[in-house]
């Protein structure tokens, strides 16, 4: 038998041990793989979110790149300011990154994000999506999926859970006609880093939607984070695709497993009844068909 094939993942680390993230935190891996793809000539802007805390208390920093911490809603504006300053100083070979959670992106940060995208800001925006306000203790966000429990969508007598569906941030970004957007998952690092390396060489506004399993918020076993992230892709709840110059390309079709495989390992969905799970399955199937149509029609 031939030697095991080498991975394409760069060996150089830009994220050192010492992050204060929870055990099994998906966002740790999202940052790690992102920086492996981008390399050291990167400046990262981080608003209020888990990653505002994870690099460590002042003066510690577990990342090998400079960080600009900002207020919650300003990531789009902050990366615009960073890029403008670098441009005016003639610095061209530095990648500016905005790294924000889902609340800081689809809710409070949506306006600044939209502005930065519309202005074609030359920067990469990464939304690590743990599907709720996790840093403040699992409150619902616009990115929390339909059916999920959070502390502000409690399961009580009225059978409460989130009754609204997740904002489709990729469609929102596609509508801004940006040159590149992609979904990435820490369970598929090669796909992840390939997309990052591609995006690095594109000029203009680039966007990543990274699913980021959160054991405390999703009520999952920390040892299962990669498994959960993989199931999200294989059940097509979180398909891996990219949109380059408006054209959709699915990069991993997944196995098409039933969504029950994904939701049964997560405490946040345990209250759902069979008809509700069927309803959820139908929504996932419909979204998948729509994505296939987008891909085949080149839109």
């Amino acid at each position: 038998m031939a030697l095991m094939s080498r991975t394409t993942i760069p060996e150089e680390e830009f994220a050192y041990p010492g992050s204060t993230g929870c055990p099994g935190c998906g966002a740790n891996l999202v940052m790690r793989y992102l920086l492996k793809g981008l390399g050291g000539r990167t400046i990262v802007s981080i608003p209020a979110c888990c990653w505002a805390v994870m690099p460590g208390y002042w003066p510690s920093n577990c990342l090998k790149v400079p960080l600009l911490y900002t207020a919650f809603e300003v990531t789009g504006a902050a990366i615009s300011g960073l890029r403008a300053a670098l441009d005016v100083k003639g610095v061209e070979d530095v990648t500016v990154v905005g790294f924000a959670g889902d609340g800081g992106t689809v809710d409070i940060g949506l306006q600044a994000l939209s502005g930065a995208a519309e202005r074609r800001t030359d920067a990469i925006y990464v939304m690590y999506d743990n599907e709720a306000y996790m840093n403040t203790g699992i409150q619902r966000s616009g990115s929390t999926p339909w059916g999920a429990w959070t502390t502000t969508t409690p399961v009580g007598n009225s059978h409460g859970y989130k009754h609204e569906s997740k904002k489709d941030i990729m469609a929102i970004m596609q509508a801004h006609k940006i040159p590149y957007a992609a979904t990435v998952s820490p369970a598929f690092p090669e796909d992840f880093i390939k997309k990052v390396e591609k995006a690095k060489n594109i000029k203009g506004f680039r966007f990543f939607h990274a699913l980021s399993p959160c054991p405390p918020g999703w009520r999952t076993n920390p040892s299962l984070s990669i498994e959960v992230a993989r199931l999200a892709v294989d059940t097509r709840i979180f398909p891996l695709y990219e949109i380059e110059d408006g054209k959709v390309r699915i990069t991993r079709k997944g196995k098409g497993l039933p969504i029950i495989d994904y939701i049964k390992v997560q405490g946040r969905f345990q209250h759902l009844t069979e008809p509700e799970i069927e309803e959820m399955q139908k929504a996932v199937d419909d979204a998948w068909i729509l994505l296939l149509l987008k891909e085949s029609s080149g839109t």
Partner: protein
Amino acid sequence: MRTVMTGNYASAYGAKLCRAEVIAAYPITPQTSIVEKLAEFVATGELKAKFIPVESEHSAMAACIAAQTAGARTYTATSSHGLTLMHEVLMWASGARLPIVMTNVSRAMAPPWSVWVDHMDSVAQRDTGWLQFFCASNQEVLDTIIMAYKVCESRGVMLPAMVIEDAFIQSHTSEPVDVPDQELVDSFLPTYAPEYKIEVGKPMGFGSLVKPDQYMEFRYKAMLGIKEAHDRFLRVEQEFKHIFGREHGGLLEEYRCENAEVVLVAAGSVAATAKDVVDSMRDKGTRVGLARIRAFRPFPYDEFKSLGSKVDGVAVLDRSYTFGATGAMFTEVKAAMGSCQKRPAMKNYIAGLGGRDITPKVLEKVFEDILMHCKRGEESEVEWVDVAGLPRRWH
């Protein structure tokens, strides 16, 4: 170059002469002609800068914060609701010790809607850690922007500054303005070269989380910075005078306060009217003067303390109101004069809100009232001037 221009153009020329490198702004009445002019300077190449047409004032300040952290000199301008939308990030700018300079065209807050002058917007930012300079002429607007960059960027200060013009009365009114030569400004204001800036190869965190055993030290140092700004401003203005041949009176401009029985304390464009009123009353033999607040932050406590022991009465005119207390300028003046050995009689006059004219007649009445007040003794502390159909006195 001596020319005629509005306060807004004076702001734009001030930012241009200081070679602002990144300008991020959002339009709001009556600030718009500042950023229109700057956008034009950038488009024609007269100013080598990046202009970011952001989608809100909050983003304007956030973009300036990021650009300034990366070592660029930044500028923005706003007014009223735009300024108050920025409130959160104003605190961020000062906490991050970034010497951003901004023009605020001071305008009333809604509701009811008003696009005209008062100082509510500026005064409401009192505690944000920004230096605040009220201007009385368009020349002073331009000169103060140049001086503000120099003061703010000095190592011991490293704090942002707000240069304030009054809506329409200054922003849209033309006056003669001397626009200094670029070479002179360059000789006065060196290139911005901060000790720390965000750059690759130096993996530092800017604005990270600190524990309770460190937070107070950061704030204490910012306090020392604004304290330092007091003396620094006086020195910078003398240097400015040496190069440009003019000054505007330190942090507290005293006009005919020598031998004055009573003085009026005011800020902004009303000072020009007040000087005329002082002149005409002096001509009639009444010993009155004007103390014009140029710096609201840092507040000129020592200057007020020494003024307070020389006069019998002090009328403080606030063009804003602090609900549930007295006008903010009155509160400060009273605190400063409280330790005078011979404390003067003091009274607060709320006037000119939402663009209501403060005419010479109004100011004469204020002077007459404070003169009477010295004789009668203090019966009321605050009076809303020229308010129809309402009880005038408030205790």
